[in-house]
Every structure is written in C-alpha cells, then in structure tokens.
C-alpha cells in the first residue's frame, strides 16, 4: 500500500478542516499537512450554510451578551469556559476571513453589516447575503491553495484510524479516482467530517453528511457526547427539506398557521410583534428548538396547512418587497422558485421543521483534543461544548473557523514536539482495513442498501424526532439493531474499483448506523426535557420538565466491543459564571432580565 508521511492529517475539508490546515501551514510552513476529503473541498456541506456567522461588533453588544445568549440557548448544557473563549475569538476570525476576501455584506459606508438571528439578543450575525457558508468555504479553499505545505487528498474516503498504544497515528483511506488504498501516517489527526443529518429521512443535509468521523472515533472507544441533541430547523422547504435560512426571519419574515394566525405567541415567544418590525428573541426570532416544537403542537391541534407533500406552515416574506429580498435573500428566492414553485416576493413559502444539525459529537476539551492522544476534532462532528442542548443559528459557521484555527494551532504545537512515527503495526492495521473493505465484495445476501438506509431514516424520525417517548425510542433501538444485522447481508453489485459509489455508500451507511445508535441510546437515557430533546413521558409526565438535579450533565456514548452497542454514561458540565435558570424568551425574558438586574442592584 502506498504510504504518505505527514505531520498533521486532517479528515474533512469543509470550513473547519480548511481553517485548520491553513492554521498549521501558517504556524509552521515546514509541517506537512495531509488534507483528506471524500469530495473536492468546495463540495463540503459548509457550502450550504446560508444565514451567517455570529461575532460581536456593535457598540450595544458585548461578549457577555453573546455568552449568555449561547449558554441559555443551549439550556445550560454548554461548557462555559469554552463558550467564553469562543465568543472572544469569533470576531477576529471573521475579520480574518474578510481580509482573505470573503464578501461579507456591507453597510453603505463600507463597513461590515450584521443581521438579526434567532435567540440572539443583539444583531451580531455577519452575512454574505444568504450564501454565507458558500462564500466562507470558497474563500477558505481559495486561500488554502497558496500554501505549498498543504497536500490535498481530494476524493479520498477514510476507512479507519491507525492507532498504536492508544495514540492516534494516522488514517487509511480509499482513493476513489485511482481505486487504490493509502496509508497516511501523522503525528496528529483532526476530525472535521461534519454532522450526521443523513441518519434521518427528512433533512437539510447533503448526501455526504453521514457522520463518518464520529463513527470512526466511536469505534476506537473515544466518547461521543450529547448525541441525543439533534436540531430540527423550523423552516425547511416542504417535500425536499431544503433549508430556508433563519435569516428569512431575521430580516422580518413571519410564520402563519392555516388560520393566518402567528401561532408562536401561544408558545412563550410573544407577545406578537408587528409585521415588519422583528424584535430579537421574540416570536419568529426565538430559538430553533422552540419553533420546531411549536410546529409539532400546531400539527396536533390541526392548525397546519395540508399539502400533498405533507403538513406545513407559511413563511411569509412578501412584505419585504422584491428589491430587498433579492439583495438580502437571493438564494432563498432561487430555491423557493426552483424547488417549490413559489416566488417569495409574491406568496408565502410552505415550510416545516427538518433535521438540520448534530449538536453532539466527538467529545473534546476546549483545545479540540479528544481523550485519545493525537486525535483532535472540530466543527459539527465534534462536541467542543458550545452548543449544549440547542445550537443558536450562526454559532456553527463561526465555530468552524474558531475551532479550526484552535485545532490547527494545537496540532502544530504537538507536531513540532513529536517525531515521525511508523511501525509494522500501523501497516498491519492499514492492510486489515483494506481487507475489511474488500471483504464487502464477497457478501452474498439478499438485502438492499437503499431499504436499510430508508428504514433507518424513517425509524429515527419516528423514535427520536422533535418529541420523544420511551416506547418509540425503544422501538428505534430495536429497529437499528435489526438493521445492523441486515446490513452485513447487503451484497454489492458493482465490482469495480474506480468511483465505486455503491461500495462507498455501503461503508457510509455502516458509519451512520453507528451514529444513529449513539443518538437514540443517549436519548432514551436522558429522562428529562432540555433544548432539542423533549420528552412526553415519565411518571406523571415527569420527563417533560428539565431536571437539573440529575441531568445537568453531558451524555457520553462509549462503544462496547462486546455488545456492539454504546454504553451511556454522564459527565459533568463546566459552569463558570452563569448559573442555570429558567430558559425564557419574549416578554417573559425581559421580565426575568429586569428582575435579575433589580436583584443585582440591591
């Protein structure tokens, strides 16, 4: 097998991976960076992010406010020391991207403009129209090409981590274009593989968002944290699930049910704000979990629109006018026209909640280090601790660059200290991974890849959706167990080595099944409601409430080799200055804030 000796191997070339690669290259141009991605970097799903990235710039804003919004938005399940670091480093990173060419939208005077976003007290979301992720990703990719020390392995699919004496030493991958395997040795391996939205049938994600990195770390015994927290974005296009950015609401879009009633006021987000005058943390600018839950309840009350493609509410942008919409939300207009046949300038867009983001991921400390020496993680595949039980919109794009940079710096430091390492054991592991992959060609069964995949997606929607119950979750646990048994009987019809997407999809499905198990096992163990994890059951409905006494804790899913299932345990949450309180929005939040200030004044 061909071997490549690197200092740093980065798996995934989206926002986080590219930012990390640049950070390493800038820290020390002598370090050899292997940037490995199963697609060309600009295909990474960062590209689809729309709304923007949060960074404090306004005079009426402060790090403290961003910190409080984030921790409260995450229902206090955030690592507060990490959030403190995070909010202080967002703005410099966003300026850095500006210097690299990112076309952040401007004010008439030529300075960067910001927009409102859900759950944020002050407008602080930097945006490049509604293609923020696209522009960030292309800026990072294009910037990265000037560093000769970054050696890209495009369209290389990672099959396994290499590990000796508990230290991560590299990866083994399959080169899709050449049809060969490669062993890449490295002193540090950085997972930047994105989320796992494809575990669900109805999601905003690209086909590549299959949780590969999470599964790879999980299989090596690295704890996977807070996987039960899966974000439903409240406004996905009906049918295809494509994202209608929160920026729509940030710019003043409103949600109506079938009675033309702004139903969010019934769910602790009111009182109603006048159309065209959005108010931070009120109504449509509430957090995503609350809005998605409101939809679910409207549906139960029979107050949603019924379309042939399913139930929906209406996202109305018509009052914003053509000129403004085309300037601020051009992609939204294009997507709604193309995929829904609705022109947002003229008519409201039918939307519904859709799986969007994996809050949890590979457990890391504030320096992106996992518990396995040499293995780092950042971005959506990681749980660095800033999102807690619910991520605020525009915190994740900026997470990619803040923790990409942090990871890059941390790895450069380690790589300078460590010596190159190679051993027969690593070669043995690489060959074993190759054999395992090739063995899939020998399977003689009658299962179907697409059936197993679709049943997994439906089962996840049914069991671990917006609201959850023990019985439903147990059913999903059983289904996944059965699907894993069926998985090993899926035969391959494609015998080729070049661009064998059937083969790759099969391995990806194996990853996603593992991640799905982490999600549902973590969920059934969390006997409370917090953020995006909402339960309807428990003795006398006890699990409907947040239970700080027992569950102000992270969930950890650790792979059990015997059972092949995750063992779930709990770990402490770091609380520094912001004590848990009731999570409130709308007028209630203002009242609580006033009460707190009055108390402090005394």
């Amino acid at each position, binding site marked *: 097998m061909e071997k490549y000796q690197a200092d740093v191997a980065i798996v995934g070339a989206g926002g986080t991976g590219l930012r990390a690669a640049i950070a390493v290259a800038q820290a020390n141009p002598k370090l050899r960076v292997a940037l490995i991605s199963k697609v060309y970097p600009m295909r990474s*799903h960062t590209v689809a992010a729309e709304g923007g990235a949060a960074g404090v710039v306004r005079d009426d804003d402060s790090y403290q406010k961003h910190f409080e919004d984030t921790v409260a938005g995450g229902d206090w399940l955030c690592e507060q020391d990490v959030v403190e670091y995070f909010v202080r480093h967002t703005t410099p990173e966003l300026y850095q991207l500006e210097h690299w060419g990112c076309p952040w939208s401007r004010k008439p005077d030529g300075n960067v403009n910001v927009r409102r976003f859900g759950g944020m007290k002050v407008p602080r979301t930097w945006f490049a129209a509604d293609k923020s992720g696209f522009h960030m990703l292309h800026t990072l990719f294009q910037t990265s090409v000037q560093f000769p020390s970054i050696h890209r392995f495009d369209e290389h699919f990672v099959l396994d981590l290499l590990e000796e004496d508990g230290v991560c030493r590299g990866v083994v991958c399959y080169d899709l274009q050449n049809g060969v395997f490669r062993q890449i040795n490295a002193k540090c391996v950085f997972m930047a593989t994105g989320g796992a939205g494809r575990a669900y049938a109805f999601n905003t994600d*690209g*086909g590549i968002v299959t949780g590969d990195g999470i599964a790879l770390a999980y299989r090596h015994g690295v704890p996977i944290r807070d996987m039960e927290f899966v974000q439903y974005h409240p406004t996905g296009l009906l049918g295809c699930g494509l994202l209608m950015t929160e920026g729509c609401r940030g710019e003043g879009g409103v949600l109506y049910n079938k009675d033309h009633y702004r139903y969010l006021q019934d769910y602790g987000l009111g009182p109603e704000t006048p159309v065209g005058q959005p108010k931070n943390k009120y109504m449509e600018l509430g957090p995503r979990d609350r809005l998605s839950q409101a939809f679910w309840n409207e549906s139960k009350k029979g107050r949603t629109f019924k379309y042939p493609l399913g139930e929906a509410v209406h996202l109305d942008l018509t009052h914003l006018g053509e000129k403004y919409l085309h300037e601020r939300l051009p992609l939204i207009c*294009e997507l709604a026209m193309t995929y829904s046949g609705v022109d947002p300038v003229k008519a409201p867009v039918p939307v519904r909640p859709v799986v969007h983001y994996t809050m949890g991921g590979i457990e890391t400390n504030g320096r992106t280090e996992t518990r396995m020496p040499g293995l780092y993680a950042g971005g959506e595949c990681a749980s660095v601790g800033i999102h807690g039980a619910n991520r605020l919109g525009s915190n994740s794009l900026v997470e990619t660059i803040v923790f990409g940079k942090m990871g890059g710096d941390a790895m450069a430091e380690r790589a300078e200290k460590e010596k190159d390492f190679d051993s027969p054991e690593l070669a043995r592991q690489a060959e074993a991974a190759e054999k395992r992959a090739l063995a899939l060609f020998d399977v003689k069964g009658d299962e179907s890849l697409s059936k197993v995949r679709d049943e997994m997606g439906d089962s996840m929607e049914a069991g671990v959706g917006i609201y959850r119950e023990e019985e439903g979750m147990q059913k999903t646990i059983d289904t996944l167990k059965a699907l894993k048994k069926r998985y090993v009987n899926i035969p391959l019809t494609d015998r080729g080595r070049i661009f064998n997407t059937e083969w790759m999809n099969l391995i990806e499905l194996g990853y996603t099944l593992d991640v799905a198990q982490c999600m549902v096992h973590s969920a059934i163990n969390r006997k409370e409601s917090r953020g995006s994890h909402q339960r309807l059951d428990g003795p006398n409905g006890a699990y409907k409430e947040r239970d700080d006494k027992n569950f102000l804790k992270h969930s950890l899913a650790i792979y059990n080799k015997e059972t092949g299932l995750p063992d779930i345990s709990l770990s402490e949450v770091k609380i520094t200055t912001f004590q848990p309180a009731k999570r409130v929005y709308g007028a209630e939040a203002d009242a609580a804030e006033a009460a707190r200030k009055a108390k402090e004044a005394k």
Partner: protein
Amino acid sequence: MEQTANNKTMKITVLRYRPEQDDKPWEQTFDVPYHHETSVLEALFYIKDHFEPSLSFRWSCRMAVCGSCGMMVNGVPHLACKTFLRDYEGKDMKIEPLDNFPIERDLVVDLSDLIEKIERIKPYIIPAPKDRNMPLNKSYIQTPQQMAAYLQFAQCINCGCCYAACPQYKLNPDYIGPAALTLLYRYNIDNRDGGKKLRAPFLNEENGVWGCTFVGYCSEVCPKKVDPASAIQLGKKMSATDFVLKLIKPEE
C-alpha cells in the same frame, strides 16, 4: 423522496463507462417514474436504488450550491439537481457526463484539470504592501458598489458546466477557460487586492483571456448566472489597457 401520486414515466438513457470492463462508453435505458417535483438527480437516485446500483455519479447538496452534479442533459450542460423532468415532458432524456472532460466512470468525469487551473491563477487576496499587517479588529473599507463590481463573478460553484460548453476548451485543452479566468478577474477587481501584477501572466497569455472567441455559451449554461463570458471580455479590456499603458510608461 418517494414518488407521490400522479406518476408518469420517462425513458431515460444514461451513458455508462466502467473503466475496468469497458473499452468505450455504452448506453443503458431505464423507464423512470416521475412527478412534478422530480429532478434529474432524483431520477438518478431512482435508477441507482431500483435498477442499477452500480451507476456512479457525483452529488451532494441537492440545492445547486455544491457544484457536484454537473452533467449533460440532452446535450446541454446542467446541474442534475436543478433540472426537472417536467421540463422534458413528452420527450426522451439522455444523460451523459460533462462534455470536454475525460470520463472517469459512468457520469463521473476527471475534473483535475479544472481544479488545477483554478489553483494556478492565484485565487486569493494578495494584499498591497500597505495592507500586509492589517490587524484583526478591523475590516477593509469596501462600499456596496465596490463589492457589486465583483460579487457576481464570485458566485461560481466550480461545477464545470462552462467548460463543457466551451468550444475553445474542446479544441485547446490548454486554454485556462471560463471559470478560472472569471475567478482571476474577480480577484483583480476586488479593491482589497494588490496582486494584479502577479496574475498578469495568466490573464495576458494566449491561453488566457485571448483564447476566448466570445462564443458566449458558457454564460448561457451557467447555473448560477455568473456570466463568465462577461468577465472574460472585461478581462480582455484589462489586458489591452495594461498593454497600452506599458507602451506609454514602461516600468521595471
């Protein structure tokens, strides 16, 4: 997405090529059920899931922004995810890999030439000397108009449709081509950039903007309305102006 009621079917022919088995491409035809919302990409999903799991094609985002699924639909370069069967009603459909690129496998082409050209033209801000140590607590001043000057040319998703539409690239693979030249021009006119001189060799060379004969089809097929033909003609103006200026005022 599963098919809903009101199903119709379309005859779809796909060009197949399996490098380890085939000497040259061949055609395979499928009857694919569709409804009003079915995209070409979803038709390919259907074929892969129900008829031919070995059919290979690139895709990811489904929303016309990742640039993976460029392919020829009835001879015209399109993004599969942004092209709908309803617009071909009553006709047959033929799907082929993007023209002008070598076929790697089925609908997957070898894009390495495009990627190399994008990398070659220095697609990043090269700050002017005075801006080299800009602190990370402020941005460049860039007015909305200064941004509008290049923003359209920064919308390219690198799907390769323009190269498949370019007869010059077909006849001369050394031609730098629409997407890369557009990107070059995009950085040259960004007021934050000071690297025009370093990109001049690529702009001015025979395979740079002067390799274009203004066919204009690249702009016609661009799924993001980037208008590479415009960027290239403007690039010719820039190149010609530089040439004249150099004659008047030669510099070291």
